[in-house]
């Protein structure tokens, strides 16, 4: 296992392996999304309080979970890159950032649209949406910092520090936002909490979560291969791999 890991940090091997993995992530993801969406839109019974509007959670919650998960993956990859000096890990971190940022945007927009029929307003400063917004700022800051360095190595290491500082702060931010919000609502129920979930409502959600995770893996494969190529400017292994891809 360790040997495979070590092989994986060699760029040509990684490039090929990741390319082979991609369809195995992508097509199951599509399939699961179709199944999950159908389950969520058609099969699940309507919610007692929120009626059919609750079906939005089947896209909102996976987006939110992925937006956070991708940030953690990004920070862990960056930490691995900085501690063990593995270039591939830095490439993974760079590849994650735009994907995670888009998940955050999707969460904010669906959260806002979900809010309109539920609260009557397009935006509310509730804990979940507010921390998603701050998470978006963290992603954008990460990408901006990367972009401000011309040298890839320096960009990798500087943004790694930012990612680690960021991920450490995420629980602090979440806690502070929940506290801040609770001062107004008293015993608060997060307004976008999934309604009391029973079995027939739960399985489409889990399916969609898994689908989103596989989807992330697939898109990460493409972006990671792009990053590997970008970083291996003049390596000799390129000619073979590119000719065949």
């Amino acid at each position, binding site marked *: 296992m360790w040997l495979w890991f070590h092989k994986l940090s060699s760029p040509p091997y990684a490039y090929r392996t990741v390319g082979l993995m991609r369809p195995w992530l992508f097509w199951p993801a599509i399939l699961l999304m179709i199944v999950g969406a159908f389950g969520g839109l058609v099969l699940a019974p309507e919610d007692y309080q929120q009626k059919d509007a609750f079906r939005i959670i089947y896209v909102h919650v996976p987006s939110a979970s992925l937006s956070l998960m991708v940030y953690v993956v990004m920070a862990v990859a960056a930490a691995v890159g900085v501690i063990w000096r593995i270039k591939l890990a830095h490439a993974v971190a760079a590849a994650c950032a735009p994907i995670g940022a888009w998940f955050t945007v999707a969460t904010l927009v669906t959260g806002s649209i979900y809010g309109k029929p539920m609260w009557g307003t397009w935006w509310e400063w509730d804990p979940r949406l507010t921390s998603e917004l701050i998470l978006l*700022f*963290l992603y954008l*800051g990460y990408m901006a910092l990367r972009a401000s360095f011309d040298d890839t190595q320096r960009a990798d*290491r500087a943004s790694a*520090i930012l990612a680690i500082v960021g991920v450490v*702060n995420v629980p*602090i*931010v979440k806690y*502070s936002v929940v506290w*801040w919000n609770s001062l107004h609502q008293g015993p608060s129920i997060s307004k976008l909490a999934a309604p009391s979930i029973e079995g027939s409502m739960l399985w489409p959600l889990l399916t969609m979560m898994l689908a989103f995770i596989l989807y992330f893996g697939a898109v990460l494969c493409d972006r990671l291969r792009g990053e590997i190529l970008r970083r291996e400017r003049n390596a000799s292994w390129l000619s073979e791999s590119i000719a065949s891809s």
Partner: protein
Amino acid sequence: MQSSVPTTPGLGNILMLVMARDLRLAVRHWDQVLQPLMFFVIVTTLFPLAISPALDELRRIAPGVLWVAAMLASLLALESLFRPDVEDGTMEQWVLSGQPLSLLLLAKTATHWLLTGLPLVLMAPIVGTALGMPQSVWPVLAATLALGTGSLSILGAIGAALTVSVRRGSVLLALLVLPLEMPVLIFGARAVDLAMHGEPVAGPLNLLVALLLFFVSLGPFAMAAAMRISVES
């Protein structure tokens, strides 16, 4: 025979030297020290002009206004933290010196706080009164700002170390640092607000202490790592 090996000063002495040097430089350029303070006062003045001269309206937003102004002033002040030393090559010497860079940078940040954060803490009650804040709130205001500006200085120093070699990096610095500072803002501003309503402030105040201790213990390592990257050519 006497050995003529020169003894290197101990770490404690070095840190004292660092702080003394920065204080001396600040005394020579005291106008630079004053500028963030003036910014703080000017920004808080904007709010009555923009909103209303009525004190009871201003009183409601005073904690938030003071805190946001303090955050922005501390951001501006960060320009003078590392940039001069990086530009004249001093920082490179520090990185190469073999002394623990994290402690050197922490000492610099602490001095910087004395020069930029502490004046804010002292000025805030005056400005707060102008916004209708009652005197009874002054102790809480001073305590939260003292603790909070400390955390702001450390987070700001990490951002400053990351962006010191980026051309025109001040806006980038703000974008990186402000999201990280939001918890400090939340606890600090709301503590003052709670105090104004006569409610207990132990909760957020303790959280501010915890945050400061947390940032002081881990922040310097991030600062040092960031500085090494910025300074290497």
